[in-house]
């Protein structure tokens, strides 16, 4: 990863009538990084992507990709990008291979060896008509379409929807590989876990406002977990409430459950020696919970 900026938005704003879909968005995505763009449904992720790709035009502000203006130099930009739209739709009457040929013709050529390799990795069937494919298999064709030109910038809106876990993992590997080779990946998602697995940095958007940009590592340390501890003897509530980062403690005989957003080490230190730990389970809180906890003030004031 270098410090060169690949995607930049500058006060990017989009209104639909009275609705402010995007408000004053300033964002820098660096070359060679995988940037996760996180937000609940309707937060403005798709609007951002559609604006920087010149599908729609900003009410004010501007965006650039690879130093080129997203509107004036839109055609040149598209030589360097691969794109997977959200809620992907393709031509139902074309086979996967026809579809890829069509886009390859519009781009001026493609390396079919690479396409076949991608198809094999994702286990995609390119001989069937797209309309006859299940949504997951259709999504694979969309992914190949985005990767096949070895683009410098990949812009993907909820790209793993419909994919089974095995293919999702392969897709994540593909993203890491292209990033390692110097490409930039802009990945919009509402699934925290997916973004955490691949992204270097994460931007969080809510109600059209970019409310935080964080390295994934620091987000993870902020992440609330739901922790369940099981002991061989009954526990006391007070022991846990004093630990930093612990909230909503509920004690039920041998079983203690709580919300926790500190370092696991602190919690374990507090109980060790006092009780014998039989089992421990932790669950990631969902994204919405993190938003509510950490970004309530910043996000909702607008």
């Amino acid at each position, binding site marked *: 990863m270098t410090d060169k900026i690949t995607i930049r938005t500058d006060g990017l704003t989009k209104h639909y009538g009275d609705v402010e879909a995007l408000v004053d968005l300033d964002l820098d995505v660096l070359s060679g990084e995988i940037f996760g763009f996180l937000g609940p449904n309707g937060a403005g992720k798709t609007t951002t992507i559609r604006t920087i790709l010149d599908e729609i035009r900003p009410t004010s502000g501007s965006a650039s990709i690879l130093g080129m203006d997203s509107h004036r130099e839109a055609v040149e930009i*598209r030589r360097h990008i691969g794109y997977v739209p959200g809620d992907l739709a393709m031509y139902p009457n074309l086979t996967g*291979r026809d579809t890829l040929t069509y886009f390859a013709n519009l781009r001026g050529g493609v390396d079919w060896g690479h396409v076949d390799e991608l198809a094999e990795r994702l286990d995609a069937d390119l001989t069937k008509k797209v309309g006859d494919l299940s949504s997951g298999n259709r999504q694979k064709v969309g992914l190949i379409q985005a990767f096949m030109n070895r683009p410098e910038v990949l812009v993907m809106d909820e790209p793993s929807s419909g994919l089974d876990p095995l293919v999702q993992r392969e897709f994540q590997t593909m993203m890491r590989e292209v990033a390692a080779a110097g490409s930039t990946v802009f990945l919009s998602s509402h699934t925290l876990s997916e973004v955490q697995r691949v992204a270097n940095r994460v931007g969080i958007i809510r109600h059209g406002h970019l409310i935080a940009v964080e390295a994934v590592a620091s987000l993870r340390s902020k992440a609330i977990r739901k922790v369940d501890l099981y002991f061989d003897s009954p526990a006391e509530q007070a022991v846990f409430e004093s630990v930093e980062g612990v909230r909503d403690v509920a004690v039920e005989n041998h079983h203690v459950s709580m919300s926790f957003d500190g370092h696991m080490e602190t919690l374990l230190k507090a109980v060790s020696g006092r009780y014998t730990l039989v089992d421990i389970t932790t669950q990631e809180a969902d994204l919405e919970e993190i938003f509510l906890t950490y970004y309530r003030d910043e996000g909702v004031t607008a």
Partner: protein
Amino acid sequence: MLATVVTKTVRDRWKGMAIAGISLAVMLLFGMAVYRDIDLAVYSDLPEAFRSLVNIPKDADVGSLAYGAIYSTYGALTLASLALSMGSASIAGEERNGTLGLLLGNPKSRTHVLVSKATSLVALTALGSLLLWGAGYLAPAVLNVEVGGMHIGALILHMFLIAVFHGFLAMAIGAWTGKAGLASGITAAVMIISLFAVGLLPLVEGLESGAKAFPWYYYEGSSPVLNGVSWGHLAVLFAAIAVLGAVAVAGVNRRDLRDRATGVNLLDRLRSHPMTKKIVDRLAGSMRVSRIWIKTASEHQGLLIGTAYVMFLMMGVMLGPFFNLIKDTLATFTDALPEAVMALVGNGDMGTPEGWYQVETFGMMVPIAFMLVTVAIGARALAGEEERRTMGLLLANPITRRRVVLEKAFAMVVYAVAVAVATFSGVALGSVIGRLGMSMGNIAAATLLGMLVGLVFGALSLALSAATGRSRIAIYSTIGAALTFYILNAFLPLSDSVAGLARWSPFYYYLTSDPLNTGMHWGHGAILLTLAVALVALSVVLFQRRDLRQTG
């Protein structure tokens, strides 16, 4: 649930019906206003056979002329077409969209869904009929025209039933096969063929009663506007509707529902056959996707083949020999025909082959055929890709929006040329087979002007599609504009005081110069071409400025 499905369908569709009803009402008003201005004495001597062909009743007065021209033909065609589109959408359309499964996920039977769809079809057709019925009383009152002796209610009742009949026919085919395109195609063919059969068969000796085999006969065979309700004919229509309803119920219950369908066309079949695979793979596969315009053109093959077939065979080749069959009957009209009447049917002198083809083929069918293909492509070219959410993907490629518009427009031109070739060769062949001796150059000229008119309206729909991203708006507005301009051009010249205004209609530059007799009018051709090019240029500008829609 029944009420819910009915309400939703009505809510989705009432606008189309209201627009159609209101534009027909406006046309009626307009037609009457013009007719009031002209000397009606000329109609009294018309031969009866001719009057029946063009729907001018015997004791013609202003009211009956307007009804004859507008209601019996345009009104019924419009109302029946709307019913047809509802019918084919009712079951098969929901299957195509993949929403029927969802609908049937509710605890109601297929029969239930079908019945509620049928109910809304009948209700909406009734709404359209009511609008026309109201206008039938309003227009004469506003213009202070005497329409005594006219059976408006009877005409509307007949029209209502013929429309419902076509709607149910489409619904039954759709329910039986699950193919919406097939349902509307067959039903439209039945409608057009029977319209012509009922108009022409009575003129052929020995075939007079053949008309009774066609549904349209039970609509206007008894001239309900003059003679009142023919209960016998209504009973036939009613029985046919009941049978079709039962067929639809049986059809939808007997078969597997189709998945969100991808059509299998001829090319696909050939492609899967080992013997033809290699060559067809090239055609259907790599060549089809080599350019945007080729891909666009490949999407409406069925429509093009159907249109070209009808124009070549039915409107072209067959009419040549047919002219010889009935030319004696037609010849007796010629002297008696006043100029004003001819305007109504395309200004052709029916006693000559040129006039015959003008009235039967070029007057109405040629513009309709060209507009079918150009508007189908024009309206869906941009809006269709946006509605199906593929435009974002297409424009993610390094191509300009201008190129997309121009390639789509080019596909439209290719289709228009194909229809032109079919029309020209059909009429030319008809003339040769029937030894009619028409000028090939003149046939080409009339075809070319017709193609240009078609392209003007195709380009209009392209511009509307580019401006709004909504193909329905593009289609309905273009049809509305075309109908209005057609009627303007037909009626305005009948009244000296407003004849000049006809120049504002694109149709004026199509047949006014009488190309079948006088050859190409390059000036008129240039005007149409300029108009079409300007509209395409406008489409480019409009599409470049706009946010792409996000649907679904």
